């Protein structure tokens, strides 16, 4: 009797846990619990192939100060907050808009809304990153069709200095061995050529509060933290967990963004200003 009670109890705990953990139920593709439609190594190789066929991404600034926007977890369908971000980006004359993953649900219609919104507002200096939602519903097919690559460096050139932003594909919860090796080589070979270095990684590294959002496995986390320390990465900007938090560790500031999702509590994006060699940022409420 005791055993039966225990078994029923355990089943209830784990079943309830699994349900609770499905934090984005409306836009979730539950096949993702068991398989990945396109694996991270394959996406990485396709991204590098695209990169070799296109010019390196570059933001050229006329003066030494520049402004960047970072937004995460917009989850289009809804576009109210996204439209505000686009409007702010235009009115503030930002030099770059970085979309740090989970911008769409992965469905084709949501990709269409995203692309149409960017085109309608004539936003050209945008840089989009893969989050887990971009990959749902075989969404990589659409991401690749519209944006080409999920792994790429962006060079920011001012009259006095050059800075580097590295966009990573962490939509599958791991960078995979190839992307990790690429990142290490990139930092080893070129980091010293840049004043500031910012890395964008959709999945949050640390759990500042109880969360059901998947994070990198400890082995990968160790490797990334060590790389970021070794090569003095200034900032790592993340999303995924929908709640902003900050951790400082050695030379690196780890920033997790709030969701910019319509109706989200504390919805915000990050405005980053580089002035007088310093990176200064603030959250802008939506």
């Amino acid at each position, binding site marked *: 009797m*005791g*055993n039966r009670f*225990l*078994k029923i109890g*355990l089943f209830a705990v*784990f079943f309830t846990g699994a349900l609770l*953990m*499905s934090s*984005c139920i409306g836009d*979730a*593709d539950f096949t*993702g*619990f*068991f*398989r*990945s*439609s396109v*694996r*991270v190594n394959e996406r990485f190789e396709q991204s590098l192939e695209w990169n070799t066929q296109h010019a390196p991404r570059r933001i050229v600034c006329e003066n030494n100060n520049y402004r960047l926007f970072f937004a995460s977890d917009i989850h289009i369908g809804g576009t109210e907050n996204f439209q505000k971000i686009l409007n702010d980006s235009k009115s503030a004359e930002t030099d770059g808009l970085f979309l740090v993953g989970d911008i769409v649900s992965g469905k084709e219609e949501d990709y269409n809304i995203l692309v149409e919104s960017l085109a309608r507002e004539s936003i050209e200096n945008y840089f989009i990153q893969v989050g*887990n939602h971009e*990959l*749902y519903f075989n969404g990589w097919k659409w991401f690749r069709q519209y944006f080409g690559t999920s792994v790429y460096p962006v060079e920011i050139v001012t009259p006095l200095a050059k800075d580097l932003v590295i966009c990573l594909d962490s*939509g*599958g*919860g*791991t*960078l*995979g*061995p190839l992307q*990790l*090796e690429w990142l290490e080589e990139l930092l080893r070979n070129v980091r010293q050529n840049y004043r500031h270095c910012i890395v964008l990684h959709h*999945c949050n590294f*640390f*759990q*500042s509060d*109880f*969360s*059901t*959002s*998947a*994070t*990198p*496995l*400890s*082995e*990968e986390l*160790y*490797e990334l*933290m*060590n790389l970021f*320390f*070794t090569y*003095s990465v200034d900032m790592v900007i993340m999303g995924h967990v929908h709640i902003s938090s900050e*951790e*400082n*560790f*050695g*030379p690196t*500031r*780890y920033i997790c963004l709030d969701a910019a999702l319509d109706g989200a509590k504390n919805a915000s994006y990050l405005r980053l200003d580089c002035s007088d060699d310093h990176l200064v940022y603030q959250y802008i409420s939506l």
Partner: protein
Amino acid sequence: MLIVGVLISLMLWCSNSSAQFIQHNYIEVGKTNASGGIYLDAASLSAIRYKHIHAELGFLFPLTEFDKFLSTFYASAGVDFKIKNLPVEIHALFTDKLVSEFISELQFGIIAGVKTKHVHVFLGNNTRLFNLTRNAIEQSRNDNYRKLQIVEKLNLMYSLSYLVFPQENKWNIIASVLNYDYFLIHQETNPFVSVRFTYNPRENIGLYSEIVYKSAGFNNIQVNYFGVNLLTGILWEIDF
């Protein structure tokens, strides 16, 4: 050091009484997305059990030159008792891992569980602290470091195992879903699965082999392969 001292004292004290000493050694070979190739580790754990108290110390030795897993120390101490014939075990644990030349990780945890004939369930909580090593601080003395530590206060630890045969059987197959082992505790959102085959050629000697499969992106991310490791080990029980 305090924890080590307390545990060694406890072990010495127990060794003078009618205690049971358990030596556990294993080797582990594996490959993950982050290991940069195949890695090989050896581990040695010494445990002492006296009546309902037990304590354990262990070290993980990396045998390959990849600078990913340098060394880890493990210590735990606990008690077991019964609640209405249900065997319950509680232990506190501590790990100290040198992640790299620059970063170390401390973990403190407490975990409790029950063991029935066929099912073992453990639940607990741990706190993780990432620290900059002295080497990192000294090498970078001129830099303006903003903080030397990251703390993750609350992380769920869990282990659910199913034993095909009762525990006392000469051989067994144990399937588990868990997020920790002796030397590595993952965040609660990263479970892994293992299957262990055990064989006891003598009453006081246990042999086992285990395969562990790790995936990344469980739950709300598309599941991707992360890594596999194989362990083989021996447990030797000595009664004083």
